[in-house]
């Protein structure tokens, strides 16, 4: 399974929750397969999906899932200690770890070599870290959602991409419909 297969399998489970979709192909794939007001698409700013998601989770009560990638977590490694030390039980960080920078041509990342992101997250103090294979992503996500505990999921999958169109939505429209839905559910 490649990342788009993992997302496709997860959509029935995560579609109704607020998601922060990582820059590049993860956002484009979510946009193509399941465009929702609850999806926040990052059109720029590599690395900050987990930080945006943490800020969202700390600010309000709805569950928030940050869909991140191994390359992006490597870019913003400082996020893991911050997450560990500011526990938000409505926050799930899903790191889809395909061992490559998928959006830029599948160049290998260190996470696909010696570096274990699950071990790093644990070492940073994150308490509920689950590493799973792509085939187990749905069950792992269901368990994380049911636990009501902040959870870091490192989902290992194969490298590879499908053709997807770029997102042409205006960023303020993306943000506004996301915030409107968020305010509605928190009302």
């Amino acid at each position, binding site marked *: 399974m490649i990342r788009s297969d993992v997302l496709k399998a997860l959509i029935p489970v995560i579609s109704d929750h607020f998601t922060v979709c990582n820059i590049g192909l993860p956002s484009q794939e979510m946009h193509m397969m399941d465009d929702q007001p609850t999806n926040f698409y990052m059109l720029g700013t590599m690395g900050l999906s987990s930080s945006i998601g943490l800020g969202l*989770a700390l600010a309000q009560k709805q569950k928030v899932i940050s869909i991140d990638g191994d390359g992006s977590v490597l870019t913003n490694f400082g996020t893991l200690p911050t997450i560990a030390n500011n526990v938000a039980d409505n926050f799930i960080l899903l790191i889809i770890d395909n061992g490559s920078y998928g959006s830029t041509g599948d160049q290998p990342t260190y996470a696909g070599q010696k570096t274990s992101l699950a071990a790093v997250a644990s070492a940073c103090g994150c308490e509920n870290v689950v590493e799973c294979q792509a085939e187990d992503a749905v069950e792992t996500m269901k368990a994380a959602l049911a636990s009501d505990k902040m959870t870091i999921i490192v989902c290992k999958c194969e490298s590879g991409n499908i053709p997807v169109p770029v997102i042409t939505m205006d960023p303020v429209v993306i943000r506004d419909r996301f915030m409107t839905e968020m305010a509605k559910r928190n009302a």
Partner: protein
Amino acid sequence: MSVDDKIVQDFVNNKVELVTTVPCKQLAGVIDKIDACKDIYHIPSNKEDEGMGICAGAFMGGKRSAIIMQNTAIGVTVNTLATLTQYYRMPLPMLISYRGELGEPVACQVEMAVHTKAILAQLNIPTYHFHHEDDVAELDKILQYTFMCNKPVAILTDASFWKGY
């Protein structure tokens, strides 16, 4: 009232409920007060762009936020300011220690000081410079302005303002 207390009071009066910080010696006092303030959730960041991401999330979750940081970090947050805070039109008060100005003992700090205002100007970020202690009186209006226009706004605070560093 001390400058530190005034800053925290202005944040609270403007309903800033989450503040992220990356420390600077000049900012140590105000960071302590932020940490002690029961109305503000203080979340230290490891890097300023990370902090700006947290602030973006807090804003979309319905809470006003702010970042406290050093001017050297303007050099590492240009992309985040342009492609997140500005692109999605989000408010972000940035209380920034302006190292490398008069009274600075560390020569290297001057190297980023000479670029600070130029980078902020290039980004079209409204920029205020607190040099005298009384300048803090404007902070309340600057915060109102920031949340009115949904832009990042820089408040540079130099060593003269802090009465040393």
